[in-house]
């Protein structure tokens, strides 16, 4: 647009063609007069007036020479202005080319504006210039770059849109040229040179129908803003505006890219660190994501699984066996678009461990609805399930305990009467046979009483009156208990070994309880080794407030089905057993904040692992 205006409005080219039109016919006319004169004079040479004619001819030649000289000089002068103008235009086009090149070569807005402002000052022969852009509100203009101003005068300067010459020009989008400017009383504090500018041009930075700012240059002299200069400035401002919009777009896209990169990084970090296994496949079914937790749950390195197709996760491939449960789920997601929310599954995990897996699975879709793969998020909730089952058992025990207390009381009272009254009868009885029968009644009643007493232990506080928990040094206490046990229940063919860590810290337990626990476990061990064997009692500090004590035997072991019920009340495999021994041991330990678990292998032996707290729990009654 500017090029076109520029070419049509150029006065210099018109000047050049006028000069050409004037000079050529003039020279031709003079040449014609001269040749005609020579022909006329040559025909008259023989006459006596030759000398007079010769003199007149010389005069004519002189006049002609003078005329030609003047005409040449005029032509040369005219030509010189033209050459200067060409040179000047070349210079200006060079500046414009440099400016355009600057515009296209940098994406740093401030550097760009700085450069263009410099070019504008050169073009307008000015020493003051400023570029302003609207702030976020769009209601105020703020300084982006400036020349010739004192820093303090422009720092934080805000010009309201629609106010003052610049504000109004921004509002209207018009170029404003101001001449004969009045003396500025603040000039001393505003401009570096401390004096008032005399002329000014205010130009909008406008492109693609968008006002992006204002450029102002001001001169200390009365600058003539020639039309071509204005056109050039306008073209420069347009280029600057385009560049500013581009830079803004570029910066926006940069910010978006950074945001996307950050988001991706956050997401990846979040997924990789989350405490759930995550597996993602692409639409071909290839596993493209498998996080660390997934690897931990299924005991496989993520890198071993990335790139594998989910259809290859079969039991036939030993390495993928623990992952084989994923295949049918992913199949349903991929083939039937099925979604699963918090489903539970019991699977054979790594090393044949039974695991309860909680999972959610879903096909992945792009925004347009097209499927791009499937994902499964899963957690190993075996420990939670185990805890739930323990809590249920504890709850069960607690209810049973309360019931047992009531029943026991009601049954013990008449049993006491039966035993006592039978005793009374027996005392007066003379018949031996009847005495024997009375003894049998008493014995049976006593057995019932013993069974009831065992059941009562459930409802008892772990610390019966006078048996509060004390600090028990196992190092010295256990050997005494082992001796007591061997005196009453020991057998020749059974050896009991104590293997304790040195400087074992004491545990908080009542003396009755530690005795009950140890005797019960030793009794079980002895019964599991009818042919004899070794019982090893080990203990060490776990470092987290507990002493772990293990009671190991080399007996017959416990079968898988019995293992499940071993701590259940009234479960027994012994003839005449109450099935309460281990239940009571477990109850005591759970009540004091400890725990017990059992590991056993048939024909190899059984190990009871006890967690004994170093600090007691408060006696809750």
């Amino acid at each position: 647009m500017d090029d076109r205006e520029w070419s049509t409005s150029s006065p210099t080219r018109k000047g050049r063609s006028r000069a050409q039109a004037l000079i050529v016919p003039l020279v031709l006319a003079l040449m014609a007069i001269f040749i005609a004169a020579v022909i006329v004079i040559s025909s008259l040479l023989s006459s006596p007036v030759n000398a007079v004619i010769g003199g007149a001819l010389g005069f004519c030649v002189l006049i002609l020479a003078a005329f030609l000289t003047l005409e040449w000089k005029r032509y040369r002068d005219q030509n010189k202005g033209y050459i200067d103008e060409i040179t000047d235009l070349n210079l200006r086009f060079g500046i414009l080319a440099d400016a355009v090149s600057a515009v296209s070569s940098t994406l740093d807005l401030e550097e760009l504006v700085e450069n263009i402002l410099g070019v504008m000052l050169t073009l307008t022969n000015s020493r003051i210039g400023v570029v302003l852009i609207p702030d976020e509100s769009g209601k105020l203009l703020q300084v982006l770059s400036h020349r010739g101003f004192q820093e303090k005068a422009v720092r934080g300067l805000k010009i309201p849109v629609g106010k003052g010459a610049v504000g109004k020009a921004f509002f209207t989008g018009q170029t404003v040229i101001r001449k004969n400017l009045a003396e500025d009383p603040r000039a001393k504090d505003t401009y570096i040179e401390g004096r008032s500018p005399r002329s000014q041009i205010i130009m909008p930075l406008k492109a693609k129908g968008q006002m992006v700012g204002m450029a102002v240059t001001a001169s200390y002299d009365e600058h003539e803003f020639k039309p071509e200069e204005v056109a050039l400035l306008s073209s420069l401002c347009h280029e600057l505006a385009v560049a500013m919009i581009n830079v803004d777009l570029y910066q926006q896209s940069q910010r978006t890219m950074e945001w996307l990169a950050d988001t991706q990084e956050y997401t990846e970090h979040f997924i990789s660190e989350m405490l759930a296994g995550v597996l993602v496949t692409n639409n071909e079914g290839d596993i493209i994501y498998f996080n660390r937790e997934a690897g931990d749950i299924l005991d496989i390195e993520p890198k071993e699984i990335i790139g594998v197709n989910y259809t290859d996760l079969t039991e036939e491939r030993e390495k993928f066996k623990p992952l084989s449960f994923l295949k049918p789920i992913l199949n349903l997601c991929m083939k039937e678009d099925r979604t699963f929310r918090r489903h539970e599954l019991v699977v054979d995990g790594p090393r044949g461990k039974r695991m309860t897996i909680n999972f959610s699975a879903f096909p992945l879709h792009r925004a347009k609805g097209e499927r791009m793969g499937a994902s499964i998020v899963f957690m190993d909730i075996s420990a939670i399930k185990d805890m739930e089952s323990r809590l249920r058992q504890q709850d069960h025990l607690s209810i049973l305990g309360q019931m047992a207390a009531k029943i026991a009381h009601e049954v013990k009272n008449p049993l006491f009467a039966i035993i006592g009254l039978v005793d009374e009868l027996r005392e007066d009885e003379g018949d031996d046979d009847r005495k024997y029968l009375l003894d049998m009644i008493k014995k049976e009643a006593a057995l019932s009483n013993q069974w009831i007493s065992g059941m009562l232990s459930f409802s008892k506080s772990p610390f019966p009156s006078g048996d509060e928990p004390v600090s028990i040094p196992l190092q010295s206490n256990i050997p005494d208990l082992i001796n007591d046990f061997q005196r009453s229940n020991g057998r020749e063919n059974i050896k009991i070994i104590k293997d304790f860590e040195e400087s074992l810290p004491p545990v908080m337990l009542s003396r009755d309880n530690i005795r009950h626990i140890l005797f019960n476990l030793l009794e079980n061990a002895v019964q599991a080794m009818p042919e004899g064997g070794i019982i090893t009692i080990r203990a060490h500090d776990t470092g987290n407030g507990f002493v772990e004590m293990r009671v190991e035997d080399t007996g017959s072991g416990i079968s898988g089905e019995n293992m499940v019920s071993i701590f259940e009340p009234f479960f027994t495999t012994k003839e005449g057993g109450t099935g309460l021994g281990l239940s009571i041991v477990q109850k005591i330990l759970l009540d004091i904040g400890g725990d017990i678990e059992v590991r056993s292998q048939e024909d190899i032996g059984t190990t009871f692992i006890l967690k004994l707290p170093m600090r007691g729990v408060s006696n809750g009654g």
Partner: protein
Amino acid sequence: MADKDGAKLLIVDDNEGVRHLVSRWLERAGFMVREAKDGAEAIEKVKEDPPEIILADIRMPKIDGIELARIIKSDYPYIKIILMTAYSSPQTIAQARREGVDDYLEKPFTKDQVEKITLHVLKNE
């Protein structure tokens, strides 16, 4: 110090067998024994003829052993009370002591044990 002979006892238990057994043992030991089948009857019998010692079961319908002890001790602070229990939590025992119960016997007990404790309580009046 009261003489064992002629010392009056009141046995309170809702279980007839227990009541009869304990009465029989203590009668044979030389005490003068009466029986009551519950707390209310015990209070009546105390009003008629206050005994030196009451042996009562803790767990009885309506007025239990501890409640009985509280009532008796407020009107007859000199009457000694021994509670008998088939099973009691430490808290129940502690509460009984607060109500002024002099001693307690855990069932099953023997003739000798009940005689010994009764004598002990009687002599420490």
